């Protein structure tokens, strides 16, 4: 009680954001859901409520991917923030004829994450943060419990062969080039393509089963 009184400005700002979020949630509930086309056209017109919807729907999956690459929760969140600002600013560059919105967003996010990994400050920080990793891993488990969907998907993914999962993850989550994948898995460059296709066909089967 005393501490709450001593920081009235902070709590009022907090309330403002809570109110703002609640407003957005009420608004979204009324709209229910955007189709991808609607969402894209609204975002091209810099519609902030559409962006809020985009964030709510895609931030968890993008953060998951960043975290899989970086394994540092704080840094991953920074990258997520940077990625969404970039998505907002560069949205005019998205062309639906060339692929799905998620793929485009993932490419932006993945490139930013790779840039962060390659940056000097990350290399320095990662050493220091190794100790914190154990703590983060504990919270990982609680976070994982957040989504029943994720659990279901993960269960399905266990049906995938290890080498197939590995090749997908190297490309999808790590941003490895075909050349890098060929070296990592010690397979000829020419077969990366066919192996990848086989793995994704298998993935599609597994996910629809």
């Amino acid at each position, binding site marked *: 009680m005393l501490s709450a009184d001593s920081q009235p400005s902070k709590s009022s700002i907090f309330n403002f954001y809570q109110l703002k979020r609640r407003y957005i949630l009420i608004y979204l509930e009324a709209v229910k859901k955007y189709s991808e086309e609607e969402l894209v056209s609204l975002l091209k017109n810099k519609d902030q409520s559409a962006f809020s919807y985009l964030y709510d729907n895609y931030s968890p999956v993008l953060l998951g991917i960043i975290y899989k690459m970086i394994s540092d929760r704080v840094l991953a969140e920074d990258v997520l*923030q940077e990625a969404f600002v970039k998505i907002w600013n560069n949205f005019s560059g998205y062309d639906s004829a060339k692929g*799905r919105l998620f793929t485009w967003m993932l490419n932006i996010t993945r490139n930013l994450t790779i840039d962060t990994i390659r940056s000097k400050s990350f290399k320095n920080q990662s050493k220091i943060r190794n100790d914190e990793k154990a703590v983060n891993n504990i919270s990982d488990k609680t976070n994982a419990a957040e989504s029943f969907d994720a659990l279901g998907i993960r269960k399905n993914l266990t049906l995938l062969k290890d080498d197939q999962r590995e090749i997908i993850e190297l490309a999808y989550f790590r941003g490895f080039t075909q050349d890098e994948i060929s070296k990592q898995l010690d397979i000829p460059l020419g077969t990366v393509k066919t192996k990848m296709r086989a793995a*994704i066909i298998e993935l599609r089967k597994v996910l629809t089963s």
Partner: protein
Amino acid sequence: MNKEDIISSGLLELYALGIASPEEKIQVERGLAEYPELRHELSAIEDSLETYAHAYTKQPPARIKEKIFEEISNEAAKKEPADGNHQPSAQILYRIPAFFKLAAAAMLLLLIGSIALSYLYYNRYKEADEKYNAASDQLQQANEKLKENDEANAAMKHELNLMSDKNALPVVLNGTPQAPDALAKIYWMKNNGDIYIDPTNLPPAPEGKQYQFWAIIDGKPIDGGMIRTENGVYRIQKMKSFGHADAFAITLENSGGGPVPHGKTYAMAKIL
């Protein structure tokens, strides 16, 4: 490459994963533009990958969203004045450069300053002008007084000269029983017959009356002129000249006098 070739080549998978080379990307995009069915195939691949990604979802803390919205709102606010939707052209057209604003302010200050100075100096001028007028009035008055004094001095000198003149014969006209206190004195110049009278000891003449001077020759009074006052004061003055006379007399007559005396005699002197 036809659509079957593209599908079976694995290019779509590489494309969806974002690891297609630039050449492969061009091939896929060309195919997508040519065959709408390819889009369905690509979408199916993307869907499965997206689902895969969902296996690792992590809920970000709420503050991340707040920070993002803060950032994009700030950027929108920054950009707003620059974009052309809010009639900024009018603003730009009528914007006055800071230098001119400064110059205008400086000029206004100078104007106010010069008005204030003008007012101050006008007041000082008025004051000085009044002082000058007062001083020149005083000077004029002093000059007039000086002139008066000079004249008085000259008259006194003349009178003194008369009295000390060796030819002057002083004759005292004593008061008659009519006016025992009255007294007049004349200085009669023996060489030319000029007569100067000193009437200072005559009583003041009443309103409308004037003293007249007479010379009695062979028993007849001859007009010797009116005795004038100067601002109500008697001074020594020149009368008519007489070569000889038996007596002199002063009578009180109506103003202007007459050829023969009508009034009473106030003073008289017999010449022996």
